[in-house]
């Protein structure tokens, strides 16, 4: 009997999963379907560079269909809902896709409307986000003419995709404004609901140090509740107000809209509860999930999705063969953090080990961890090539697997998360 594998989402996780599974199964053994509402695959790390004119949208977007191996069926449709009891997915054109295995890989949805005033007057005039291609382009235009005033970089609340991205934005904004010769006229502020610059203690201290070196004011425990995009104020739930001339915000994130329309699939925020080691969901044994769409307790990031995809594809095969699942995902995440002036940091961590200084992937390097270097910056730039040509097709990168390497890390005592 030919098995039906249905993958919701044709982004990083869905594409990698489809391509890996396509290689594992003969066409006579499995039919693989990928559903996405559009045919635009965005290389999301590239969005960070667009506001500074360092990348153009057309350089970071490719057709989703073309990233999928031959023999994968692509449906350009919105998902209406998932009928878990019937093992079926209903698409917006009335198509019903029955499945033996369902993989949820629909990432997150930006929800500016969940914050009072956000998305209303002043949106894309004085209040921007670079988390969407359109927003990143609009912000580029605004930054080109911004030469004085108060620029606030804000994240409304966790979880967000790539938790380091707003910090990187602040570092790059400092660099950009210095290059343009107007930094002295600009007050740069970084406001976060966290109690430090970042979630993990050792990295948080390093990053707070960088903010202060670059003369960026850090405002912590600021839970933004309301924005006035005309008057230029951002107010927290506990009544504090920050004035701005330009606000760059990361809006609230939730799961895809169909998750809410599918009883039993997601939690209150639309994320899909997922076993953090096997990536099977408690929703049903034949429903798996990966990437930003899950509630797995690690960063929502492409590197996480990539490491998860290896484990998930293996587990889908095992499940269909009636074998025990591999509890192989350890929470491994790996991020370059762009710090401006052609330098970047690299952090590497998992569920149990926070980002530590040292070298990556082994003691012999070549990349320094938690320290600014030009090589890390080149690594970040080169990564886009790897993404399209190695990661999405589902090829392995030698020496970098799902399990976090420990050889090059210097363990710092007395810190607990």
């Amino acid at each position, binding site marked *: 009997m030919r098995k039906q594998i249905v993958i919701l989402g044709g982004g990083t996780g869905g594409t990698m999963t489809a391509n890996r599974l396509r290689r594992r199964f003969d066409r006579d053994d499995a039919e693989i379907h990928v559903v996405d509402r559009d045919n635009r695959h965005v290389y999301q790390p590239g969005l960070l560079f667009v506001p500074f004119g360092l990348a153009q949208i057309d350089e970071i977007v490719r057709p989703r269909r073309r990233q999928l191996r031959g023999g994968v069926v692509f449906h350009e449709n919105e998902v209406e809902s998932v009928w878990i009891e019937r093992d079926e997915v209903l698409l917006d054109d009335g198509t019903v896709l029955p499945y033996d295995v369902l993989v949820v890989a629909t990432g997150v949805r930006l929800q500016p409307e969940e914050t009072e005033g956000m998305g209303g007057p002043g949106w894309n005039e004085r209040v921007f986000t670079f988390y969407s291609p359109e927003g990143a382009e609009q912000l580029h235009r605004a930054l080109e003419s911004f030469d004085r005033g108060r620029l606030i970089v804000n994240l409304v609340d966790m979880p967000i995709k790539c*938790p380091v991205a707003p910090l990187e934005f602040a570092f790059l904004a400092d660099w950009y404004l210095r290059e343009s010769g107007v930094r002295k006229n600009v007050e740069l502020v970084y406001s976060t609901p966290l109690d430090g610059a970042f*979630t993990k203690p050792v990295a948080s201290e390093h990053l707070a140090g960088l903010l202060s070196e670059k003369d960026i004011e850090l405002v912590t425990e600021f839970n933004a509740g309301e924005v006035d995009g005309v008057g230029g104020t951002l107010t927290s739930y*506990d009544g504090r107000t920050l004035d701005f001339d330009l606000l760059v915000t990361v809006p609230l994130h939730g799961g895809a809209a169909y998750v809410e329309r599918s009883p039993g699939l997601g939690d*209150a*925020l639309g994320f899909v509860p997922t076993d953090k080691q096997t990536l099977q969901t408690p929703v049903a044994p034949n429903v798996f999930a990966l990437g930003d769409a899950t509630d797995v307790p690690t960063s929502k990031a492409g590197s996480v999705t990539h490491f998860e995809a290896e484990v998930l594809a293996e587990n889908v095969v095992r499940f269909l063969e009636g074998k025990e699942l591999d509890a192989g995902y350890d929470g491994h995440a790996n991020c370059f953090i762009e710090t401006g002036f052609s330098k970047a940091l690299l952090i590497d961590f998992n569920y149990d080990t926070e980002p530590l200084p040292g070298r990556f992937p082994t003691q012999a390097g070549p990349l320094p961890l938690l320290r600014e270097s030009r090589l890390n910056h080149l690594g970040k730039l080169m990564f886009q090539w790897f993404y399209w040509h190695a990661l999405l097709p589902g090829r392995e990168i030698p020496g970098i697997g799902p399990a976090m390497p420990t050889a090059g890390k210097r363990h710092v005592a007395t810190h607990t998360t």
Partner: protein
Amino acid sequence: MTATLIADAPVDVDAEGFLTDPEQWNERIAEAIARESGIPELTDRHWLVVRFMRDRYLSTGTAPSIRSLGKESGVPIKELYELFPKGPAKLAAKIGGIPKPRGCI
């Protein structure tokens, strides 16, 4: 972790005063922690939130974030901040005798 007495009951707390064993909790402990945190009296609305936090922690092993609290407890986020000034999720967890929410990653 330190052993201490709250409302005459022996409890273990972490460096910030969060109970490390939810089983040691009772309502008098909750009232004592609330008073110490600047909430003179726990109203029905406070209790609704505290119980929601506690039930959720005991059934799932994690405390809800402020956002899910606002969506699921029936108390909107604005009111949560009025009830528990500064950090509603943190403070309600402390009063409810569950460990400090780990926050996000």
